[in-house]
């Protein structure tokens, strides 16, 4: 099959795509969208941290002084806040990531069946939503705990 359409003069047509703004705004369409957005953001953040961390540890190779001066850089208020963020994001990313591995393999989403009006899509069920909430909750707890450890010890 083909479709006939005359595209000659439609070159200037607006593509209408939301572009990057489409995923920058997670406030529409519910919790699953928030989860999608946070998973990305935390993933990217962790990648940045990870590369930084590999660089940080490389100071080991330059002896104890280099290591200590690197440590000093991180033992600041800012550094601690950054670390707490790492703890939070990694907790969220991990917990939610495990949830996603299950859901994206079709587990825990319910079975297809006759939809009854008003439609409640079974893939947006409360097990899934609570998975997201739990990930958020655990991330908060981990951050609190991390904060206590970091700031508690004379930071």
């Amino acid at each position, binding site marked *: 099959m083909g479709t006939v359409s005359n595209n000659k003069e439609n070159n200037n*047509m607006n593509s209408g795509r939301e572009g990057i703004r489409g995923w920058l705004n997670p406030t529409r369409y519910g919790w699953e969208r928030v989860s999608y957005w946070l998973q990305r953001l935390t993933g990217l953040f962790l990648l940045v941290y990870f590369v930084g961390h590999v660089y940080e540890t490389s100071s080991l190779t330059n002896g104890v002084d280099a290591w200590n001066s690197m440590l000093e850089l991180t033992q600041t208020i800012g550094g601690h806040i950054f670390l707490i963020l790492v703890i939070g994001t990694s907790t969220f990313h991990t917990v939610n990531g495990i949830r996603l591995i299950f*859901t*994206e393999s079709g587990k825990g989403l319910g079975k297809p069946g006759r939809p009854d009006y008003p439609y409640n*899509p079974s893939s947006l069920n409360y097990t899934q939503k609570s998975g997201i909430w739990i990930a958020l909750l655990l991330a908060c707890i981990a951050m609190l705990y991390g904060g206590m450890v970091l700031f508690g010890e004379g930071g």
Partner: protein
Amino acid sequence: MSNEENKKVQLKVYRTNYNKDDSSHYDKFEVPVKRWTTVLDALLHVKSYSDSSVGIRYSCRMASCGSCGMKINGKPSLACYTKISELKDDVIVCEPLPNFPRIRDLVSDFSQFFSHHKNMKPFIQNDKVSVDIDDKSDLVEFEQTHEDVDKYLQFSYCIRCGLCYSACPTVATDPKFPGPQALSQAYRYEADGRDNSKKTRFNIIDERHGIWRCHFAGSCSVVCPKGVDPALGIQLLKGHMLGLSKNNKKISTLRTKNNE
């Protein structure tokens, strides 16, 4: 009730004509509304009595043809399926569907959307039973139980309105991604026992811009007006493709006539 009699709302309609380099703007119209007035009714009222040049696409006015998708107060919706009284707002903003090229005013171009659908080979393929009946004197249908039908029925009721396509964050940046509509149709045919094509659709969607570009943002299922739940179909399909869950469909065979 009496103050409802003469209730009016303001309709803000996105206007532009891309071929004319019109700069886009919003036109405002006052329309009278009743309890049952839909956004489509209101737009047609505008078209009949205020400004006949408003571009809209519409046909069935009963949410079964999929023509009238647009963004209403920020959310992709069917105009004929959205009652003004439900919106609980005195200003109704109508904009074209995001993620579709725009033709004029509220009308968008669906050609790419349709071609994604077509790429899924959305038809029954079966190498055991001839899909086209050759011998018209021997008419037997496939045997399918209620359970067999339920496996795909839900995905069958996609009216191709494109709302899911306009809500999906991946589609927003990746035009090569087939989108929730096409992918859920791929699942619809995969789940149908009458189809026994092994892996042809898997090969089509196991691409760089294929099914793995869905990250279960779920927005498609949030906006779908027909309960299709494309997100579900897509994740189930992924499970089958990863080999983590089995496609437990029963391959249907033709009924034998004398077992009735």
